[in-house]
């Protein structure tokens, strides 16, 4: 009896595991191994290909490459942080202050932007913000502006666009943990003499840290890997690193260089997440739950 049931469990496991394994193998691991191999291949002067570090070398030699890289990293961290700063009070309002009816309504408000594709969303922003756009029209009509100004194509607009696009991915995990935060913990802190800032710093944020970290990881990865928003809303001379990869592979048809860049990006994002988890003393397995 015992034995057969054990075997059954194994079968169930295998049936579940095989597709997952195949999916991981063919769509993730194999392509990445191939990319990794490609990133170490170079063609020499005579058109002969062979092993080389040249693709990685050129990244450090060309300032444009590592500057874009650093800029992308810095901006991604900034955007993640700003999203967090906005998401915390939003999540708090939705879980603790709003009534049940308003709660549902607010969640829908958060979700609605995701019913349209990223492209359409960005175009929406462009219609609003461009020189001949809606905002400029009203501001000049109301005589607040003498003449329309260009609001698109600068870093501030791009950051705003990235915040808007990724808000939901921070709010949802934070709401998840904040819902289980007992109101009486906040009251107890208040009763023990804590001010509002101390309640946030000592009770709410530490309690929500797993949600904050998982939200931050998701948002950070999404921002780091985003392409459309920086390309369409960002400044002309300020590239996002994904655009560099795109350029290498699609424009210059230099797959080897593109693969090397891809790996550098992966390395950097893993490193930043690792450091962030270490600093906040969170376990990865706990955060991704």
């Amino acid at each position, binding site marked *: 009896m015992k034995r057969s049931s054990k075997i059954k469990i194994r079968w169930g496991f295998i049936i579940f595991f095989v597709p997952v394994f195949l999916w991981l193998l063919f769509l993730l691991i194999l392509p990445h191994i191939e990319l990794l191999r490609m990133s170490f291949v170079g063609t020499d002067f005579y058109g002969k290909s062979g092993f080389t570090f040249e693709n990685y070398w050129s990244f450090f030699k060309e300032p444009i490459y590592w500057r874009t890289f650093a800029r992308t990293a810095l901006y991604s961290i900034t955007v993640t942080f700003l999203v967090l700063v906005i998401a915390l009070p939003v999540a708090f309002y939705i879980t603790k202050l709003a009534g049940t009816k308003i709660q549902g309504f607010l969640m829908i408000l958060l979700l609605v932007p995701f019913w349209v594709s990223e492209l359409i969303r960005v175009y929406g922003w462009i219609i609003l913000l461009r020189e001949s756009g809606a905002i400029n029209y009203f501001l000049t009509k109301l005589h607040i502006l003498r003449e329309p100004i260009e609001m698109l194509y600068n870093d501030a607009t791009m950051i705003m666009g990235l915040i808007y696009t990724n808000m939901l991915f921070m709010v949802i995990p934070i709401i998840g943990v904040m819902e289980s935060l*007992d109101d*009486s913990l906040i009251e*107890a802190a208040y*009763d*023990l*003499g*804590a001010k509002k800032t101390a309640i946030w710093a*000592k009770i709410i944020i*530490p309690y929500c840290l797993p949600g904050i970290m998982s939200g931050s990881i998701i948002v950070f990865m999404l921002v780091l890997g985003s392409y459309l928003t920086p390309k369409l809303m960002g400044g002309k001379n300020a590239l996002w690193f994904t655009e560099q990869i795109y350029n290498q592979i699609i424009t210059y048809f230099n797959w080897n260089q593109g693969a090397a860049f891809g790996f550098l990006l992966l390395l950097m994002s893993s490193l930043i997440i690792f450091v962030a988890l270490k600093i906040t003393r969170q376990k990865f397995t706990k955060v991704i739950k």
Partner: protein
Amino acid sequence: MKIALSVKNVSKYFGDFKAVDDVSFDVEDGKFFSILGPSGSGKTTLLRMIAGFYTPSEGKIEIQGRDMEGVEPNKRPVNLVFQNLALFPMMNVYENIAFGLKRRGERGKVVREKVEMMLDRVGLPGFENRKINELSGGQKQRVAIARSLVLDPGVLLLDEPLGALDAKLRENMKVELKKLQAKVGTTFVYITHDQSEAMVMSDYVAVMNHGHFEQVNTPQNLYNSPASSFVAQFVGDNNKFIVKIQKDERGNFSAVTKDNLQFRLDKPYDLEGDNIFEMYVRPESIMINPKEDPNKINSIEVEVKAILFDGGNSRILVVPKNSEKEIMVSLPQNRKYDYLRPKDTIKIGWYHSASVCFKGTGERVYEEIE
């Protein structure tokens, strides 16, 4: 004596509903004051007004002589031990207890010393680094109390802190809490729906019902001379009889049940209207086969229905001849009544002075008391 807490004509409305109804009381410094009432009687609401989480709709609250109107909870010289304890799960025991001290700006050695002393007081020395989820129910209890007591509040408010514990631990914690209060000398205002908790621990007990105080007195006085039908039912156990009170030609009062059982009363009552009263006799004041002077006691012949053995709290259930009314009688466990068997016929009796009557309200606290 200094007054630690003074509540003056306080009421609280939630919409049209009056959760607390014109409550007034004073608590002297260093006393253990309990508020006893059934679920939903407004105890938590009253306590939250004292702590500052609700503002009273009417009336005034003074703590240590200071009017508390407009004073935020984090500025009041009171601390609240929550019904569910509300310990901070992301902090260890030390951080929980030090939380309030740090908010006051205390730092370093002073904090450590105070926390250690407090843990000693509540009997948990060396527990500083324990996580909250590594504590038993009773230990959590003590940490919650220590967390508030360490701030040396003018008044410590406790909202049914023993509610979640099992019966044996509750018995234990009752005594512990009383001893702790005597040791630290802090004024305690303690909420409970368990009359035994209130009786054992308190200097004074307020009995609360439907948002108002029915009676405020020492546990002894509440037990011996309840001021209302509600108090008679809620504090201690009681046999309840629905009776009609009559006055005979010599001016003696007596109560008659609908089964025509007649009991003498030793006090006069105002006879107006239908004269329907509720009469209460405690199981403990009923004697089995009484040898007392028959002129001083009500005595009836009854049949033993059941023997309810419960150690020191044993009872017998008896029914008078020609009646259906069940009466609970205490059964002292001194082996004197070991011969009693169900269906035996015995005599029971109680002093005329042992029964009290109140004008019938028809209200029942719990169904089991009839």
